[in-house]
């Protein structure tokens, strides 16, 4: 696809050498002078009242930090969209792992000895752990009198109840998905140092400006008094979007109390047991068909397991409901979302941010609707593909050209789908499946303008170097390469002349979070615009700055109160086929092929795009297959990388990766969001393939080997009604 002067042509990643040589300094590598270490004391019960925290005698230089150390005027909460998540538990605990306090001192071994001797007395209460238990208010409701943290309803077309009255057939089906742990390579860690009349936070994090805003109320200081410096970040996947606040808040209070740098680094088990996860979900469909089997109406109730605190989950739930129609357009559509309070660790951002759950659900439901009628899922799904100008789930229109037909052709050709579907009989042990998915790029609606107002600066230095100043972070996805490449390409200077460092909030403007597939699409565009403004002056002026600000295109209204209008101006689109073989003795599933095509607009760097596709697709297969994270009593049962099973490169053959070139009007060089899109569909394709191979209907993920055997022995036949 790339021509010589095309920006798509790959360059060597800017961060490649320092990371491969081990020279990159991650938080644990940084030596902070006179630094104290912190260990968290956390709730060991899912629900209860704290009666007493029993501490051993603390040696000199060691102290305990809890909510009582928040100074007068400070607020004991973390601002993560909502403000209900406490920095320190006071009298009640709502989940296992809730922060009660920090033990702080100079020696980590002494701290480890002390931690072993801390105990907490609770008056335990009956927890609600699953979505069903939360809805049933097991143990009594603890949020809003009904355990519903948040709720929304959207509908398009004719009223669903009216349409149901004239349907020939109504199909009801429930699809469920489980927890998913991020397993970023680098665990969470942060350090807070008093400096001048403020504080400096060093953190492995996605969103430095979020941290500042979230924790400043603890000391009742302005966010500007806190400087956040991102340290080299070894992966995040959404797990370091809001979650670093949970470390940085208590560390800020500890630094305030001790007047010293306080550092905390989680080990792997600690990180898995005590960090946010992807929301488990349950989607209940009610779909009305006419007598020819065509869909007249699709109604859904979307339940997300939010956990003990709301924090960012309402936005996740919204995205879930907005994506539950998938890549389809139905005459009538309705969806109602419920964020359910449970006594589990609060769920939070994870690549896809609520979209993967409902996309998996609708893809699976569509397959089953087809198979009930003896149709190939592909033929059935094709009838409903959404097109440019069609109405979206929020009564906006699809603005861009939808290239699903072209992408489908690429995938069909690469995978040889049509031949294989004929050849691999249902239940033959071999199967191929296919899925369609999208992802609305950037913040919903006009959020980019009303909530973020992203700014970005380019600074030209006398020696010809240009520095990009913005809050965007590199976390392994390639952004340290993408932004400089955009600037260099516009300015027609070598990429080596463009400097882009890990952000320091005291010297860069707030360009919004590195999340929501927005960085290339939104901030990349600000850099492109700034570079264009700089270009004429570049050789004439020795040193100057250009600042750009995000402006939402006119004519695409959005109402955040009613969830009506243009939710997203640019969607990424995807088609993915997966082929599997199932071992007839052991039920082991071997992935024999994966072929995908994605529309991320015009790619800014093909190799980085390929990296995103390969990783996202495999992560999606892991979510659907091996990544079992159980929680039935409030405790996560999988606590290490040997029992929480993420796939390795051995679990998937070389992927067939296709892209389409569909330049996005408002993106840099035509690029739009991609990072989450690539996760959103491979799970559904995998399950489609697996269910065909074993001839059984699968309604819930993950499906590890033992579960495959269970379906083989007891599952409902594919095509049978529930």
């Amino acid at each position: 696809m790339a021509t010589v002067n095309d920006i798509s042509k790959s360059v060597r990643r800017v961060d490649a050498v320092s990371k491969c040589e081990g020279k990159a300094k991650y938080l644990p590598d940084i030596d902070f002078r006179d630094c104290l270490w912190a260990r968290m004391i956390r709730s060991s019960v899912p629900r209860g009242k704290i009666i007493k925290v029993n501490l051993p005698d603390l040696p000199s230089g060691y102290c305990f930090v809890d909510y009582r150390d928040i100074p007068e005027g400070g607020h004991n909460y973390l601002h993560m969209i909502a403000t209900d998540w406490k920095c320190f538990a006071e009298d009640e605990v709502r989940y296992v792992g809730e922060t009660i306090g920090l033990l702080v001192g100079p020696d980590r071994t002494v701290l480890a000895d002390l931690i072993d001797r801390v105990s907490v007395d609770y008056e335990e209460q009956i927890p609600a752990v699953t979505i069903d238990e939360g809805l049933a208010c097991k143990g009594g409701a603890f949020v809003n009198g009904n355990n519903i943290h948040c709720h929304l309803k959207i509908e398009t077309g004719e009223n669903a109840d009216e349409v149901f009255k004239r349907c020939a057939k109504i199909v009801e089906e429930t699809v469920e998905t489980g927890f998913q742990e991020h397993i970023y390579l680098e665990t969470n860690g942060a350090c807070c140092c008093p400096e001048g009349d403020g504080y400096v936070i060093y953190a492995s994090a996605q969103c430095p400006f979020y941290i500042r805003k979230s924790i400043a109320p603890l000391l009742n200081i302005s966010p500007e008094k806190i400087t956040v410096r991102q340290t080299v970040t070894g992966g995040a996947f959404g797990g370091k979007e809001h979650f670093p606040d949970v470390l940085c808040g208590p560390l800020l209070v500890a630094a305030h109390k001790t007047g010293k740098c306080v550092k905390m680094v989680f080990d792997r088990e600690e990180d898995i047991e005590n960090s946010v996860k992807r929301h488990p979900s349950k989607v209940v469909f009610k779909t009305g068909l006419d007598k020819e089997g065509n869909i007249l109406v699709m109604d859904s109730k979307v339940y997300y397991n939010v956990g003990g605190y709301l924090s960012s989950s309402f936005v996740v739930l919204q995205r879930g409901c907005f994506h539950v129609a998938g890549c389809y357009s139905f005459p009538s559509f309705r969806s109602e979302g419920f964020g359910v309070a449970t006594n589990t660790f609060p769920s939070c951002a994870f690549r896809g941010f609520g979209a993967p759950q409902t996309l998996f659900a609708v893809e699976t439901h569509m397959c089953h609707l087809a198979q009930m009628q003896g149709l190939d899922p592909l033929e059935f799904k094709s009838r409903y593909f959404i097109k440019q100008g069609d109405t979206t789930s929020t009564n906006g229109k699809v603005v861009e050209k939808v290239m699903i037909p072209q992408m489908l052709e690429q995938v069909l050709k690469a995978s040889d789908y049509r031949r294989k579907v004929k050849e691999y009989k249902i239940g033959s042990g071999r199967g191929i499946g296919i899925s369609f998915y999208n992802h609305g790029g950037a913040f919903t609606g006009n959020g980019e303008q009303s909530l973020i107002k992203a700014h970005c600066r380019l600074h030209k230095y006398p020696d010809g170097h240009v520095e990009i100043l913005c809050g965007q972070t590199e976390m392994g996805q390639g952004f340290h390469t993408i932004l400089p490449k955009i600037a260099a390409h516009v300015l027609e200077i070598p990429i080596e002349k463009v400097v882009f460092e890990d952000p320091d909030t005291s010297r860069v403007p707030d360009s919004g979070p590195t999340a929501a597939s927005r960085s290339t699409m939104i901030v990349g565009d600000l850099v492109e615009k700034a570079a264009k403004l700089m270009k004429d002056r570049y050789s004439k002026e020795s040193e100057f700055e250009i600042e750009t600000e995000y402006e939402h295109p006119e004519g695409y209204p959005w109402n955040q109160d009613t969830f009506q209008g243009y939710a997203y101006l640019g969607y990424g689109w995807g088609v993915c086929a997966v082929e599997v073989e199932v071992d007839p003795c052991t039920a082991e599933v071997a992935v024999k092929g994966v072929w995908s095509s994605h529309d991320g607009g015009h790619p800014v760097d093909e190799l980085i795009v390929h990296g995103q596709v390969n990783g996202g697709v495999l992560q999606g297969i892991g979510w659907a297959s091996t990544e079992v994270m159980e929680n039935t009593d409030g405790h996560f049962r999988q606590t290490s990388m040997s029992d929480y099973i993420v796939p390795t490169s051995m679990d998937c053959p070389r992927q067939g990766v296709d892209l389409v070139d569909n330049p996005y009007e408002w993106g840099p060089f035509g690029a739009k969001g991609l990072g989450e899109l690539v996760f959103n569909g491979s799970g559904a394709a995998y399950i489609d393939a697996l269910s065909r191979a074993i001839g059984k209907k699968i309604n819930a993920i993950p499906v590890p080997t033992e579960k495959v055997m269970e379906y083989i022995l007891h599952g409902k036949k594919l095509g049978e009604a529930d």
Partner: protein
Amino acid sequence: MEEVRAYIPETLKEALEIRSRTDCIPLAGGSDLMVSNKRTTGVAPSFDKPVLIIRNLKELKEISVNGKGECVIGAGCTSAEIAQSSVVPWHLRQAASRMGAVALRNSATIAGNIANASPKGDTPGPLYLLDARVRLTSLAGEREVLVSDFIVKFKTIDLHPDELITAVVVPLSERNFDYIFWHKVGTRKANAISKLTLSQAIKFDGRIVSDYRLSATATGAKTNRSREVEKLIIGKEITPALIEQVIDAFDEVISPRAMPEFRREATRRMIRRFLSVASERPENRVIDTFDGFHVTGQPEPVF
């Protein structure tokens, strides 16, 4: 803060002397002990006894064949070394080559894998199957015990306080059998702990089974092998009814706690597969769970 006392002997003799006078924990690869005794990031592991580091003892690093044709594997040989050795019997090579990840295989030793006495351990399955013995050495002398007796029960071994495991002696190789089978169902394709592993081997005298062996890991508190079950088929001609008899009898032997249905069903299917294919006397000596769909052409429904 407690310090860890460690001994690093230079010879086996020195190690045995330390062992005879000190209550200590032998540590070779460390891939189990350093994990089970770890504390947290930046804090040294804690051991409740002194540690005897025998990782570098040359006397424990050799793989050879003795006068009786038995394979003698030094206790300190790593999984990687075992997997790459042409004199190591097939079942054991398979198990060693699929243990953990590369870094672990370069560190973990066979003695450690036995001494850990985990029901999910990779090497005990083949070692039980092949009647392998551990050689236990002290200043007083040497004794050899069947691995299946040495592992007494879950996480418990028959090692005297003054002894070290110095070698593993494997008397049988694939040459003793007409057909062999080893299949590990891991948690994933690589870097995986066993969910279930079956080792099988069979020898015929004409149409009569002259030897049959079967062992299963991750199916109870320790690796399972039952000579009683094997005797059901030895001396007889394989029939479908006899296969089912063996399957049912072995099902009584195993006692998986987690995922019992999966482990029982997959065990049944793998025994059925091996015995029925072996009874047809195919050319290929290695029998696996299935031949791959490409071999059979148009696949029939199997589920």
